């Protein structure tokens, strides 16, 4: 079980949270003009990173808010959590594999 540091509430156990998938995916700015390829990328294509990965979490059984996290998917260790809308913080070099 992971301990996740909610930026609003502090460290809490994983069952309080729901996972929201990859972070920083922007919806096409002009949906009616988006091509099938752009919809494919928005809806389905994911980085599935082996290494440091930016992802969304929601503190569903706590404050209810979405936030983002950087987690190493080879160890499940959290490197940082940060509020929605913020840019991901810099991570130590060598994290990416």
């Amino acid at each position: 079980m992971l301990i996740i540091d909610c930026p609003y509430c502090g460290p809490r156990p994983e069952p309080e949270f729901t996972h929201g998938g990859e972070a920083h995916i922007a919806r096409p700015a002009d949906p009616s003009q988006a091509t099938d390829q752009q919809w494919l990328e928005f809806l389905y294509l994911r980085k599935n990173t082996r290494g440091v990965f930016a992802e969304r979490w929601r503190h569903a059984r706590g404050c209810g808010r979405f936030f983002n996290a950087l987690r190493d998917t080879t160890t499940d260790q959290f490197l940082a959590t940060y509020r929605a809308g913020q840019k991901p913080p810099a991570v130590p070099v060598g994290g990416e594999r």
Partner: protein
Amino acid sequence: MQKFSAWALFKEAFGGHQGWKSQYRRATPKAEYDAIIVGGGGHGLGAAYYLAAEHGLTNIAVVEKGWIGGGNTGRNTTIIRSNYLFDESARLYDHSLKMWEDLSQVLNYNTMFSPRGVMMLAHTVHDMQVIKRHVHANRGNAVDNEWLTPEQAKEFCPILNIEQNIRYPVVGAALQRRGGTSRHDTVAWGYARAADALGVDIIENCEVTGIRRDAHGAVEGLETTRGYIRSAKIGVSAAGNTSVVLDYAGVKLPLESFPLQALVSEPVKPIMPCVVMSNTIHAYMSQSDKGELVIGAGTDAYNSYTQRGGLHISAHTLESICELFPVVRRMKMLRNWGGIVDTTPDRSPIIAKTPVKGLYVNCGWGTGGFKATPGSAHLFAWTIAKDEPHPINAPFTIERFRDGLLIDEAAAAAVAH
């Protein structure tokens, strides 16, 4: 290849069983092959076998970063069934189920296929409706499936608790009698041995670190931890690590990799004659020939490559198991482990050409790839050899996500994902 038979066993007994040979060569990579399969699991080794046996391609290799069958092939709960909802899926999985039936004879290797019946439980009115819909859809596709009352379900699996006073009582079940289990390791070993006998090089401890492409973008070869290997055809069958390998060729896939857990109990005398699955409370169980109860848990909520999962996931499954099968409540669990499963948004696999010439992919099997091993391998070999999909795997493309032609077994909930 040393043929296995009663006579061979008898003959070797006189030599004190010292005459048995290694079942496949520990090959070192050659400079060039006609085709290379990345991933030495059941699907990859099977594809190499069918490429050699049915398509005459014998100058081929399987590269595996660890040891063969050490990934999801050796980590799954060995359930085999074909009771999927959609026509495309029913054709795919039933193709595979039919191949299981004579696989031991084809490979001269006892895969211990045991069609003992797979029973899926219904606990609510919604379950009854969904599962009956599956039963009818399956029958329409000539896939056997039948509806059982709770009493009939208990008759088929006597340790099942059908009392109506539990949180999710059993209100019925669907039974596919042709479904069952098989010994998972034997599938990797059997395919490896048979492929090796046809000249296929099986190269272990050889991790892919890059894919080289020529000026026109077509694949040229593989960079590996054991050197560069040229090949104009590369088939990737790398399960949870497929995204990583295809990223070397710049191909993005609609995949996410999740840890999926399983666990086994201490071995006991036979108490369970079939496989029982429950989607609603997410538990499934069967008994291995060694006597261990083999229990499947769910995936973790987050994507990961750690090959382990959260304890609360398996604890949750055990709570369900104890309620469904009260007889196991005092048993100890001996081992639990995780594997990394690559899931697609519609929970159907991809067996297809990629946008890169000479690069093929067989992935997205998610939580249920073992059952498909022979069929998937057979169709992947066809796709690689002929550079076009077999009619059965033609719908299972990457482009279906762009074109809106999903085969949405996720919504159909053949199992809880």
